[in-house]
C-alpha cells in the first residue's frame, strides 16, 4: 500500500468505531465500571468511558504508577531510544476523574459482582472492563520460570525486563551470540520477535561487529516473513540466522545457569545472551475468575467483546480471543472502544452499535526503515472475520523512500495511539 492511502486510514482509525448519541450518554446513570489493567486497552477504555459518559464512576485498577509500552521497546534494546521515552502515566486519566486504585486485582467474584483486590478488599461493580494483558506460561519450557527470566530475560512485558536485556547486550563481548527464542501462536505481537532481531542486529553491526543473532522458532513460518528475510539479507548479510521448527528451532528446555537451550530434536545451543520469549496466556486474573477456555485465553462475544461466560464483563486487548485480529496495541485500542460503546449501550438498555475494526502492525527493519501489514475486520454470522480484500502488506520491491516513509508513519502512529489511550494533561 502506498503511504498516502495509509495516512488516510490512520486518520480514519482515530474515529474508530463509534459516536454515542447524547441521549444514550444521559441514560447510563452513575453506574460503576471497574477497568482492570492500565495498558493500551485499559487506558483507552477508562478514557473513553469518562469521555462519553462523564457521570459514570470509572475506577482504574492498576498497581503501577506508570506503564512502559511494548511498542518501540525493541528500539530501546538497540539503544535507539531511552526506556523513559516509553513511559506513560495515569495523571491525565485522573484529571478526567478516573479513580486510579494502585493495587493488583486478584479475582472477579461474578456471583457477588465484586472485584477482589490482592489485599482482600472488595470493590462492587455494575460492569467490568477486563484488560489485564498477558502472563508468561511458565509450565511449557522446562527450567524456565520467573527466576530463570532474571538471567534469560523475555522482555515481552516492557520495563525492567527490557532494561535487563539491554544491559546484557551492552555487557556482551564482541563475537558473542545472541539467541532469540520465539513461541508458537498465539502470542503478543506476532511480528515483534523479528523486529527485535532486526534492531539487535543493527546494534551489533555498530557495537559488536563479530556478533550474530540466532532465532530459534517454534513455528514453521512467521508474520511478514518474506519482508523480514529480504531486509535481513540486504541490511545485515549473514548476521541473522532463522531456524524454524523443521530445523529444530523449538526450545523445550532451558538451563539458565549455563545459558543453554535444548531443542525438540536434541540440538543444544549456548549463547552469551538469551532472550527467551515463552508461550503466553491471559493474565492470571482471567483464569482465577473462570473466564478462560482450555487455550488459556478469554472467549468473547465478538460484536460486543463481552466475556462469553459473563455478560457483565467486557474483555479487550491481548487477554481475549479476538483472532483473526492479532494481539497488538492497535487491536487493543480499537477493541477497547468497541467494548466501551457496547458497555454503555448495555447500561442504557439499548442495542450495541455496530462495530468495525482495523489493525496495522509496523515493524522496523533498521532505524528509519519499516514495513507494515494491515487489515480490516468486521462481524459476519456472529463471528469476527478479516474482511476480504482489506489486507495490505508493504511491497517486496518498494518505490524509493517507502521504507523511510513507513518508519515515519510508525513514529506518528505511536505518538497518536499513546495520546489516544493515556490522554494528555490539560
Amino acid at each position, binding site marked *: 500500500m502506498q503511504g498516502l492511502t495509509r495516512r488516510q486510514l490512520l486518520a480514519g482509525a482515530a474515529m474508530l468505531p463509534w459516536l454515542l448519541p447524547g441521549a444514550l450518554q444521559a441514560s447510563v446513570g452513575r453506574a460503576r465500571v471497574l477497568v482492570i489493567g492500565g495498558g493500551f486497552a485499559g487506558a483507552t477504555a477508562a478514557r473513553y468511558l469518562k469521555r462519553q459518559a462523564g457521570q459514570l464512576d470509572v475506577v482504574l485498577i492498576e498497581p503501577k504508577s506508570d506503564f512502559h509500552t511494548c511498542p518501540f521497546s525493541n528500539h530501546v534494546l538497540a539503544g535507539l531510544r531511552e526506556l523513559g521515552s516509553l513511559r506513560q502515566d495515569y495523571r491525565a486519566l485522573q484529571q478526567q476523574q478516573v479513580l486510579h486504585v494502585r493495587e493488583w486485582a486478584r479475582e472477579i467474584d461474578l456471583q457477588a459482582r465484586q472485584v477482589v483486590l490482592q489485599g482482600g478488599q472488595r470493590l462492587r461493580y455494575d460492569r467490568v472492563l477486563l484488560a489485564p494483558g498477558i502472563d508468561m506460561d511458565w509450565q511449557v519450557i522446562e527450567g524456565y520460570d520467573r527466576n530463570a527470566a532474571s538471567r534469560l530475560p523475555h522482555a515481552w512485558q516492557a520495563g525492567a525486563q527490557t532494561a535487563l536485556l539491554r544491559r546484557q547486550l551492552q555487557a556482551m563481548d564482541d563475537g558473542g551470540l545472541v539467541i532469540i527464542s520465539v513461541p508458537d501462536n498465539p502470542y503478543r505481537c506476532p511480528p515483534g520477535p523479528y523486529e527485535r532481531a532486526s534492531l539487535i542486529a543493527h546494534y551489533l553491526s555498530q557495537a559488536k561487529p563479530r556478533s550474530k543473532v540466532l532465532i530459534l522458532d517454534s513455528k514453521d513460518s512467521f508474520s511478514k516473513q518474506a519482508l523480514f528475510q529480504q531486509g535481513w539479507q540486504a541490511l545485515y548479510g549473514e548476521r541473522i540466522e532463522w531456524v524454524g521448527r*523443521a530445523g529444530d528451532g523449538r526450545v523445550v528446555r532451558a538451563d539458565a545457569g549455563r545459558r543453554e537451550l535444548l531443542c*525438540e530434536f536434541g540440538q543444544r545451543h549456548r549463547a552469551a545472551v538469551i532472550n527467551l520469549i515463552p508461550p503466553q496466556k491471559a493474565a492470571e486474573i482471567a483464569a482465577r475468575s473462570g473466564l478462560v477456555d482450555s487455550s488459556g485465553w478469554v472467549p468473547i462475544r465478538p460484536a460486543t467483546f463481552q466475556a462469553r461466560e459473563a455478560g457483565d464483563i467486557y474483555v479487550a486487548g491481548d487477554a481475549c480471543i479476538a483472532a483473526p485480529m492479532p494481539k497488538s496495541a492497535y487491536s487493543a485500542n480499537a477493541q477497547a472502544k468497541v467494548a466501551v460503546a457496547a458497555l454503555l449501550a448495555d447500561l442504557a438498555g439499548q442495542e450495541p452499535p455496530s462495530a468495525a475494526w482495523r*489493525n496495522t502492525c509496523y515493524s522496523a527493519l533498521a532505524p528509519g526503515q519499516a514495513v507494515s501489514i494491515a487489515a480490516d475486520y468486521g462481524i459476519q454470522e456472529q463471528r469476527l472475520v478479516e474482511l476480504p480484500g482489506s489486507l495490505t502488506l508493504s511491497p517486496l520491491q518498494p518505490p524509493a523512500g517507502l521504507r523511510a516513509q513507513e518508519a515515519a508513519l510508525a513514529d506518528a502512529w505511536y505518538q497518536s495511539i499513546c495520546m489516544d489511550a493515556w490522554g494528555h494533561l490539560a
Partner: protein
Amino acid sequence: MTLRLLVLLVLAGPVAAQPWGQAQNSVEQWLQGHEVQTQGLSLAVPTWVEDGAFVAIDLTLRDAQPPVSLSLLRSGEDDPRIATLHVQAWEAPLRLSTRVRLPRSQQLIVLARDGRGRVWLAAQAVEVLSSSCLSPSSAQPGSNLGPLQAWLEPHGRGLELRSLLRHPMETGRRSSVDGQLLPRHLPTHFEVSGTHGNLLRIEPFEGLAANPYWRMLLPAGQTPLLLCWVDADGRAFSRQLP
C-alpha cells in the same frame, strides 16, 4: 441407548443426514457392522486456532489390542483424508501426536480399530480464525526437503519418539505467488521399525500439515529404531536411533 444406535440415528436422521460432511463415506465404511466403543479413544485438539496450516492434535487410545489401525479425517475438504496408521506396538496407553491442515473451520475425526475388531470414533469441531498477519512461508515447492529430525528419550517405562520431516506436503490445489498451480507432492509412507520388526506405518494424505511431525510412545527394548520416510519419487529419508 447404545452408541451404535446413536450413530445410526445420526447417520440416518433427516436433519443431519451427513454429520461428517465430506468424510461421511469414509466414516460409514469404517463403522459398518461394528459397535462403536463408548470409552477409550480421546482426542485433544484446540477448539480454535489462529493458523489452520498447523493444528496440533494428540490422541490417546486405552485398552486396545494390537495391531491398531487409525484413520484421521476432516469433514470439510474434497479429500477428507489426513493419514492412516497401522500400529503394532506401543507403551500403553497408545499415544500419538501430529499436526493437521484445516483450511477452514470443520470437524476433525479419528477412527480406530484394534486387533479384536473393536471400533472407536472421536471427533471435535475446530474453529479456524485465520489471520493474514500470520502469512505463510513463500518457500518454493521442493526447495526444502529433509532432513528427517528425530529424538528419542526415556518416558516412564517406555520411550518417547519425536520426528519431523521437512516437506511441503503440496496438495496440488495451491497456487504460487505468481498464480501457477503448484504440483502435487506428497510422500508415500513413513515407517518406524524396532528390533522386533515394524512398529508403525503411516500413509499421509492432503490433510497432514507441511513438515509432517509425529510423536509417539514406544515400548522399551525396541532400540535401535529405524525411521524412514519415502517420498513420491522413491527417495528415502532415514534415521537410526540411538
